[in-house]
């Protein structure tokens, strides 16, 4: 069932290509893509588009990614652009930020965001604050990405959600998508953005398939960062969520719809 979607204007002007649809359309050549593949394709396209983009992190190259998100990229791009790092988050996050200082566009993968705490100083103090402290002289075009939040039975140390932590830091753009379309469009936007972006994925969403239209599959499809989105129209109550919990909200909305309560499900991206 194709959901009606539209993008809420939140008072900020649009920065990049925005899809505005007032009416639902049955997408012509819809393709089923899961979130993992959407992220993989997004990175592949951006690596191809800009020579300065490169990926580093633990197991991203020869292992094809701890969660297979970077599958095939090392075979295609080689050692120079897909770099396996030792298990030294603080060190390689710092190296990634330094590379961004010097003009490259790194994607720094944390195996999970829990491990980012080893490197949180580099994310906040070296990446987020530098543009401000240098009064605009030193931009930091870096993307930190990886799975965040709940997983299945991995215990407390591997299940923390960092959205609130990073979301409160000025200078960082924090993104937490749900669907494959959002993951794709926002990761591409994040890589093209000249600011440090914290991209929070979710391990349990990686395998979930979504229908993506031809338009979404275009190699220049980007979504604007910072705009919320209505996934389901409703009139009685609004449910606001991000990442995996959007799915639960939609399920809840379906249950309530049977009782005549129409929920609007809004996604904060």
């Amino acid at each position, binding site marked *: 069932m194709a959901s009606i979607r539209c993008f809420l204007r939140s008072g900020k002007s649009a920065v990049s290509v925005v899809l505005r649809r007032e009416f639902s359309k049955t997408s012509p050549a819809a393709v089923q893509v899961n979130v993992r593949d959407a992220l993989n394709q997004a990175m592949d396209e951006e690596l191809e588009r800009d020579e300065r983009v490169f990926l580093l992190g633990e197991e991203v190259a020869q292992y094809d990614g701890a969660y297979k998100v970077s599958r095939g990229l090392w075979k295609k791009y080689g050692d120079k652009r897909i770099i396996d790092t030792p298990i030294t988050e603080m060190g390689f996050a710092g190296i990634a930020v330094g590379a961004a200082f010097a003009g490259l566009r790194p994607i720094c993968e944390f195996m999970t965001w829990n491990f980012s705490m080893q490197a949180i100083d580099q994310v906040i103090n070296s990446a987020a604050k530098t543009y*401000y402290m240098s009064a605009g002289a030193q931009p930091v075009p870096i993307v930190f990405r990886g799975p965040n939040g709940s997983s299945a039975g991995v215990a407390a140390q591997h299940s923390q959600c960092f959205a609130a932590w990073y979301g409160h830091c000025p200078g960082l753009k924090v993104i937490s998508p749900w669907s494959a379309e959002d993951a794709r469009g926002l990761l591409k936007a994040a890589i093209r953005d000249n600011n440090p972006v914290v991209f929070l994925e979710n391990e349990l969403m990686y395998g979930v398939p979504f229908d993506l239209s031809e338009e979404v599959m275009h190699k220049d499809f980007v979504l604007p960062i910072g705009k919320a989105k209505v996934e389901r129209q409703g009139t009685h109550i609004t449910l606001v969520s991000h990442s995996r919990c959007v799915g639960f909200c939609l399920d809840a909305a379906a249950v309530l719809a049977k009782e005549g309560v129409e929920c609007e499900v809004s996604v904060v991206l």
Partner: protein
Amino acid sequence: MQKMLTIISNVLRGSARRNATSLVVASRSYADFTPEATFDIKKVDLHRLEEGPPLTATLTREEGLKYYRTMQTIRRMELKADQLYKQKIIRGFCHLYDGQEACAVGIEGGITLSDHLITAYRAHGYTLTRGGTVREIMAELTGRRGGIAKGKGGSMHMYTKNFYGGNGIVGAQVPLGAGVALACKYLGNDQLCVSLYGDGAANQGQIFETYNMSSLWKLPIIFICENNQYAMGTSVERSAASTEYYKRGDYIPGIRVDGMDVLCVREATKFAADHCRSGKGPILMELQTYRYHGHSMSDPGVSYRTREEIQEVRSKSDPISMLKDRMLSNNMASIEELKEIDIAVRKEIEDAAQFATTDPEPPLDDLCSHIFANDQPFEVRGATPWTKLTSTS
């Protein structure tokens, strides 16, 4: 140019730490001053290296005057900052570099401005050698709009082209420097990155992580440990199990250099730069130096060391005096000429201080600007929910 071997003098510099003799070989020409002279410099200690930098350094008159002027400028600028801080015109953190001038000037003498450099918070000297002006630096210390970071960075966050600050978090700048070196290698531009840290930072874990990755990937990085004997108030004996910082890189070749002699530093840097540019990967340099001031302006600097110690270094190993003596005793410059430079430097500092004291502070809107790069202006909440400020990129 005719060269005649003339031994003019042996200048003995004895001190507890140093035992160098300068043997001067002067070349005569028809000009009044000696255009160039070669000096013996102290041998460096080597780690995992068969050969080190040369044992002699050639200094031209031009270079000598340039190094003298730059070191004197740094010295006077730091002393002026001390004065302004005591007058409460500079506030916040202020970490002064006087005593260590030979490091900044010597390093710059061994690399070019197209190479990259990153250091920690004792950064005023490097901001100058990397292209900043005294005016901009002082105005940044006083937090005015004419400052090198428009008043928003302060003492620890000054940036110029190919100079990445000025970093407040101890040790964080070292992986950042390796990242810059990675970019140099990635882009294939034959540039390198000099990444500085102090004896205190040398114990940071992230530095060892950086040693590992730089070696694995053969990054063109020169690690430089400026060992001024004290990490804030903790002496090297009290903070490090091994105080041989040039060996701490383990598998990384290292050299230990007299950091009070600008020629030693320069030759060592050239040697290290050659090592990097030939693709051999990282190299580590320990510069043995000394700071006259305390750790920062809030530290008198005498509770953990004696005044006698400071005085002794000042009288026996001062970098500016050393260069001055060398140049004078080899007829490379006259006392009057050097005095003129002193006067010119003093004037430059006075003008800069004047500017730094009278320039207006940044406008209120700047409080929220430069949060994001290349973005449209957006509204930011001010101190209360109903005050809005506009943030521009």
